[in-house]
């Protein structure tokens, strides 16, 4: 009788281990469920050509529901990226009659604690009316949409 009990106990323990093992395996490749919460503390890392300054301004202008902090230690999320601006050359002005600059930027928002990239966006404007300001505002607008849509 005692053998039967101990046998059943071993079977139950093995089943529990199997269930938890399967859950752990699933959790390893689970889809990222993290969203940027409204009011999250965000640090904007320095970006080439001072694009971070334009981005901070755009975040405020577009009323993105995040709190910008000056120090990375105080932040929950970090915005990093790259940007490139090219002024219209003589050929572009003469042949196409276009004085506007060419703007390119790409930003990523990552969770500082988990190290996971939670959002990313890239923008390209062949003839940007307001230069870097336009591309920064595009980034901010889409970030706002991403936060508010969740």
């Amino acid at each position, binding site marked *: 009788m005692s053998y039967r009990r101990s046998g059943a106990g071993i079977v139950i323990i093995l089943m529990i281990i199997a269930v938890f093992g399967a859950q752990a395996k699933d959790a390893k490749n689970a*889809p990222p469920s993290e969203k940027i919460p409204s009011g999250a503390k965000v640090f904007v890392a320095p970006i080439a050509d001072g694009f971070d300054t334009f981005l901070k301004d755009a975040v405020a202008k577009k009323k993105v529901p995040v709190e910008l902090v000056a120090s990375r230690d105080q932040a929950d999320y970090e915005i990093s990226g790259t940007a490139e601006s090219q002024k219209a050359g003589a050929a572009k002005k003469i*042949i196409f009659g*276009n004085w506007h600059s060419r703007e*390119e930027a*790409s930003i*990523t928002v990552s969770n500082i604690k988990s190290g996971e*990239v939670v959002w*990313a966006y*890239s923008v*390209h404007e062949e003839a940007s009316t307001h230069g870097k300001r336009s591309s920064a505002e595009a980034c901010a607008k889409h970030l706002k949409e991403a936060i508010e849509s969740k």
Partner: protein
Amino acid sequence: MQSKTRFVSLLLIALTVSFATYSARAWSQAEDKSAQGQSTAEAKAASDIKSAPSDEGQLATVNNAKIPAYAKIYVAPMPGGFENYIIAGLRNKKVPLTVMVDRSKAEYEISGVSESEKAGWAKMLFIGSQQSNEQASIKVSDLKTGAIIFGYSVHKGNSVRGRQSAGEACAKHLKQVVID
């Protein structure tokens, strides 16, 4: 009596020498076989790299390797900050991967090179195009085994959206080897 002992000792020496020769030959044959097997395996691995032409680039997969969905991937820094465009492309093309900022937490790594050339006055004048010339090449490696499991290169003579287009092309083709 003495001759009998000498005969036995000679026989023993002959047996020992023949045994030693045989074992040495067998050892060298085994080494040759293993070397042949290794070279065959290498040749097989090289033949398993399949190249498939796509609309604007070349894609290569090794042994039809696949990346599990939501695997943790790290995108290494590339010239001109192209890694940011790849991450944005992965999100835009809805590639089911989790991008990590920390390499030590990742299972796979994307590394590569990219080059962007703006349209010059001659291109604008003769072709009437002000779009840039983009080229990029990426590879995905398994950080545990060190094996390269995916490679892709893209070239766009007139990229409508510059590096963004190249980054999205890389992401689109990477999606093909991710098991959803």
